[in-house]
């Protein structure tokens, strides 16, 4: 039987530091790991509890996201009985254009309608910036065993693993070592880079009634429905909050560097297996494709490829997405090459991220650093002399 959970995905996420990759797409539809998008990870988690519907709140138009999700059938979200993907886009635009009260009204109403009309017992809040693979069935078990009002997922990481000016928060646990959460605080309040964080993974579960109570409170106070605000409301109401520790692979995707690092992490077998083979199978939109062809002269050293590529050159420590061609004599190292890129002969790329459909002309050379990889935006042309003609 299906567990009755109404998932709400807050995809109005800060992605400015990921420009230009997020110029035309929300963080949630950022390509990752040769054939995925970040949204695949929370969506695949939902498959472990057989959720049959989900509500999405998106800042912009969400075009790239909708193209990816379609009916939601890939993740079992298309059931004709009470299922479906309920989308709410242009949240940012509405906030700007409409008078504040009108906007605020819709924002809370949309949440209210989705949750109150569903036959769910529980509500789960999720985002897409915490790259991880979480067994929500284990979370649900924990939540029920603790008879908790609210359960928040966290992971123990070092302060240095997130940005100095990170927008995320760390949980404050009770001293009794009983998994009780006493609050959260912005990680920017913690300056010691060696300090342990209990990073709030912005995922929480609560009963439908509790959620509606907090929603009402958020509406009264005119604040967003975020995990930090909900932790605050539940503390004020003297509700019990528990923290559920996640011990699998986590990368907080908050800038180009962390995005690059997360991709490179996949070339380490332990990380790769932890993310893909220790919890839920990660599902993505199925694509029709031919196998990848490796030419007679190709040289591969520790790299991942999606289907439909044609590889004649040399590829080392890199992530190659679908439909990429790399010509003979070309050399790609420590790089991320997204779908539909074409790399001509004798090109040299190192520490480079090519967004989709970039054309690299014969003999061009680009070299960034691991700390600051060069990012080339979608549809650009890189000329032989190395100058970049930006895509539209």
């Amino acid at each position, binding site marked *: 039987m299906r567990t009755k959970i109404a998932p709400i995905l807050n995809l109005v996420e800060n992605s400015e530091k990921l420009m230009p990759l997020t110029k035309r797409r929300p963080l949630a539809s950022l390509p990752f790991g040769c*054939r995925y998008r970040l949204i695949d990870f929370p969506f695949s988690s939902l498959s472990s509890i057989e959720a049959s519907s989900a509500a999405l709140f998106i800042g912009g138009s969400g075009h790239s996201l909708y193209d990816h999700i379609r009916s939601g059938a890939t993740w079992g979200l298309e059931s004709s009985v009470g299922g479906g993907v309920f989308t709410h886009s242009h949240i940012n635009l509405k906030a700007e254009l409409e008078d504040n009260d009108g906007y605020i009204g819709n924002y809370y109403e949309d949440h209210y309608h989705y949750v109150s009309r569903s036959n769910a017992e529980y509500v789960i809040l999720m985002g897409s910036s915490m790259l991880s693979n979480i067994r929500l069935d284990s979370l649900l078990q924990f939540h029920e065993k603790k008879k908790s009002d609210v359960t928040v997922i966290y992971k123990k990481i070092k302060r240095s693993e997130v940005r100095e000016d990170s927008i995320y928060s760390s949980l404050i646990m009770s001293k009794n070592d009983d998994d009780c959460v006493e609050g959260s605080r912005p990680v920017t309040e913690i300056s010691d880079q060696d300090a342990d964080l209990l990073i709030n993974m912005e995922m929480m579960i609560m009963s439908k009634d509790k959620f509606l109570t907090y929603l009402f409170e958020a509406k009264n106070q005119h604040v967003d429905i975020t995990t930090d605000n909900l932790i605050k409301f539940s503390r004020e109401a003297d509700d019990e909050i528990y923290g559920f520790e996640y011990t699998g692979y986590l990368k907080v995707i908050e800038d180009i560097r962390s995005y690059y690092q997360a991709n490179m992490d996949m070339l380490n077998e332990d990380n790769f297996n932890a993310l893909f083979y220790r919890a839920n199978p990660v599902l993505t939109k199925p694509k*029709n494709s*031919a196998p990848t062809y*490796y030419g*007679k*002269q190709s040289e591969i*050293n520790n790299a991942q*490829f999606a289907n439909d590529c*044609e590889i004649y050159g040399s590829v080392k420590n890199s*992530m190659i997405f679908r439909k990429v061609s790399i010509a003979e004599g070309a050399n790609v190292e420590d790089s991320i090459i997204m779908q539909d890129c074409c790399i001509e002969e004798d090109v040299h790329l190192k520490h480079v991220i090519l967004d989709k459909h970039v054309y690299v002309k014969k003999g061009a050379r680009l070299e960034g650093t691991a700390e600051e990889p060069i990012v080339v935006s979608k549809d650009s042309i890189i000329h032989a002399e190395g100058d970049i003609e930006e895509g539209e």
Partner: protein
Amino acid sequence: MKTETVAMILAGGQGSRLGKLTKQIAKPAVPFGGNYRIIDFALSNCANSGIDNVGVVTQYQPLILNNHVGNGASWGLNRHNGEATILQPYSSMEGEKFFKGTAHAVYQNIDFIDRKDPEYVVILSGDHIYKMDYQKMLDYHKEQEATLTVGVMPVPWEDASRFGVMNTDKTDRIIEFQEKPENPKSNLASMGIYIFDWPVLKKYLVDNQAKNRQLTDFGHHVIPAYLRNNEAIYAYSFEGYWKDVGTIESLWSANMEFLDPKHELDIRDRSWRVYSNNPNTTPQFLTERAKATDSMITDGCYIAGEVEHSILSHSVKLGENSLVKDSFVMPNAVIGKNVKIEKAIIGEGAHIHDGTEIIGTDDNIEVVGYDEEVGGYSDEN
């Protein structure tokens, strides 16, 4: 609802010359080319030719085949005005309806075809590797005002006696049919592709049944009956790659041909895609010890060894210091360390343990069956 054309893919055959590869699964479901099963070519041809109503007639070991085809969604055939339908033998008041031959299989499914009420029925086999636009053949059928059009291919004269050959007049009208003749009068081999005017074919099938004369097979019974009655039968010549992968050697060589980036089939042609029911797997992971040359590798593979002039289907694992050369490895096979495989077909889910050697020759391709274990003194055991 009126439909112009219904395609019937005859996918019930065993393909016994494929030995252990068709022991548990029907020939059309045998994996091919890394990311496909044989029937994908006929199904994709239907989809690309704009034929949205497809009956897939299955009988022999149909589980994997039925599961693969499903409702046809992978080929875009699950439309409001189109569908792929699995047709299996059933029993009724008139007794059991196991299919005795190609025409008999269509006779048993008259109700299915009539429900669509088509003008034309395209009869296809699910056994062949090719790309063909059936719409062009249908246009030809209409132009000639034929009641039956047979897809034919010129074959070398010395091979003609292995096929059913069509003897035609100057207008391409078929005047004689010879099944595997000793002295062929023509080198136009039947491809097992037929377009019939449905009302005419139905009449033949029903009338003969009523007279207790069964038209069991298209080649042996229906075409001779049409010829006797002077029906307008025309030959439609197909030029292009077409391969019957009915034996181990031909399945192997078709895969080796498929590897060539300049292969006539052009699997990367976006305007005529070959669709399949794609598994959701991780990207292909080639470790720092991996080597892959002149090879096709598919998503879900983990490669720590060497791959040379071979096709590795999805989710194959290849251990360190192992070599796969001139071979076709089917999905989910696990190949251990220090293994050497040459000129072989490795079945789906087979397990080749550490240190094993599997070496075939051009005339004798080695075959490891589905889920078969070879070797077995691995360190891990």
